[in-house]
């Protein structure tokens, strides 16, 4: 607490539990939790590594009821915009009209130009947000891995909405 203002990180898991409880959902969501976390050391310097960008935004303006699937598109030229109206983000506090606020293609192109990263994968990937942890782990994550390997990507930057 500074100046009487709460600047602690927002407790999203607790906040959403109370929110959906108030909506009448009786079973609280169980968030993914692991004791371990896998870690890969850098196989080569960043300046020689090919980076792939992964987002949870979508290529088209989905309805909230549309089933979501893994999708990919060319990074250059980047899409004029991506879509996230069907996702939960703070629609009162901010907006997502500026692509650079959630899809960092310009800084990545600059980093490649300046030699701070070796290269960029030709395409980026959209991973669908899913309540089903099983579907993310067993279907979508392996598909993203397959596509990253096709891209010959060495490292991945993941940016959730």
């Amino acid at each position, binding site marked *: 607490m500074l100046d009487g203002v709460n*600047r602690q990180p927002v*407790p999203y*898991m607790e906040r959403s539990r109370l*929110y*959906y409880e108030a909506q009448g959902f009786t079973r609280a969501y169980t968030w993914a939790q692991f004791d371990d976390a896998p*870690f890969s*050391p850098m196989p080569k310097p*960043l300046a020689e590594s090919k980076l792939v960008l992964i987002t*949870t935004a979508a290529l088209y303006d989905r309805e909230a009821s549309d089933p979501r699937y893994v999708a990919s598109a060319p990074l250059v030229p980047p899409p004029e915009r991506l879509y996230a109206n069907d996702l939960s983000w703070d629609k009162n506090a901010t907006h997502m009209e500026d692509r650079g606020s959630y899809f960092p293609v310009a800084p990545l192109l600059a980093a490649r130009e300046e030699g701070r990263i070796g290269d960029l994968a030709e395409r980026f990937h959209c991973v669908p947000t899913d309540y089903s942890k099983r579907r993310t782990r067993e279907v979508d994550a392996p598909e993203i891995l397959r596509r990253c390997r096709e891209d010959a990507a060495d*490292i991945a930057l993941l940016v959730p909405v």
Partner: protein
Amino acid sequence: MCHQTVSLVARHLEANGIPTVVLGSALDIVEHCGVARFAFVDFPLGNPCGKPDDAAMQTSIVDSALELFEAAHAPRTTLALPWRWESDEWRERYMQVSPENLAELRRKGDERRAERQALRAAGRTRQE
């Protein structure tokens, strides 16, 4: 939910030899799941790469995330970036439950349950 999804994907990539950085704003969800490298931007959900129309901030944030690839030497490394949103009102307001909006939330919940049921009945859900 987006933060959990990318955390699960990041874990899968790491387990298969691809180093990752997650650049996001929901600290508790990402750390609960556990990822290798996390660049934390304490902003309202939706702008993890920086404020809209502030290209200089966006470049600085992304550059910090890139540096984390080489700076982290162990899993669960979180780098908290120093940027502040201009006000803090959003912290309490997001997903707020109050006596004033309880009836509205209950109505939303009823709508959502009915919609889900209709989608399931119509087979318009993922089957994998």
